[in-house]
């Protein structure tokens, strides 16, 4: 059983398109995240949700809109895709909001904008 699963794993799309990445965790966690890994492998937090509520939004363009329909799901919708959005997007989850709790990552979604 995959603890944190995200779909699609690979996505190639044209500039200007709108796309979504879905994420589900079956760990019973109440906190979920989206991280972005750029071409130089640098990882940065984008969003954090706790019990379906947005906790952290790290200066991400408003073309990116996360949605959490329930505690087990955190989807990422991206409007008007740009070349610079090409990256690997990781969904993650943890139990509770304490920063000492282990964060479990999904396998990533490789987004390529052409």
């Amino acid at each position, binding site marked *: 059983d995959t603890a*944190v699963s995200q779909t699609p794993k690979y996505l190639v799309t044209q500039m200007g398109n709108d796309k979504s990445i879905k994420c589900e965790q079956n760990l019973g966690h109440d906190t979920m995240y989206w991280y972005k890994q750029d071409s130089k*492998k640098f990882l940065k937090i984008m969003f954090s949700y706790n019990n379906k509520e947005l906790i952290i939004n790290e200066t991400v363009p408003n073309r990116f809109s996360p949605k959490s329909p329930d505690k087990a799901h955190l989807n990422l919708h991206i409007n008007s895709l740009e070349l610079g959005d090409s990256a690997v997007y990781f969904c993650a989850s943890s139990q509770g909001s304490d920063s000492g709790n282990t*964060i479990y990552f999904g*396998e990533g979604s490789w987004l390529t904008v052409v």
Partner: protein
Amino acid sequence: AQSVTQLDSQVPVFEEAPVELRCNYSSSVSVYLFWYVQYPNQGLQLLLKYLSGSTLVKGINGFEAEFNKSQTSFHLRKPSVHISDTAEYFCAVSLRGYSTLTFGKGTMLLVSP
């Protein structure tokens, strides 16, 4: 704000040799420290973490790390590496309480026969 510096972008070693991956952090308050591993085309997996207590932390796959407050370091070590340890290793820090992870830029460990 906290930051993490991984001094080596790439560390080549031979199989069965010992290895140390260096990590230094900067923060004006107490932090938690983590090491994550990323195998090719996969997500990140926690190797070990330091929250409090003993400064020597043992993790999975034979890795360990030592927290050194005076040197603000959290270096990762393994006494004998395997080919399968080839991966990207990320050091990360978070503030105590509610906070998210701040990652270093990663160190690629390349193990050759």
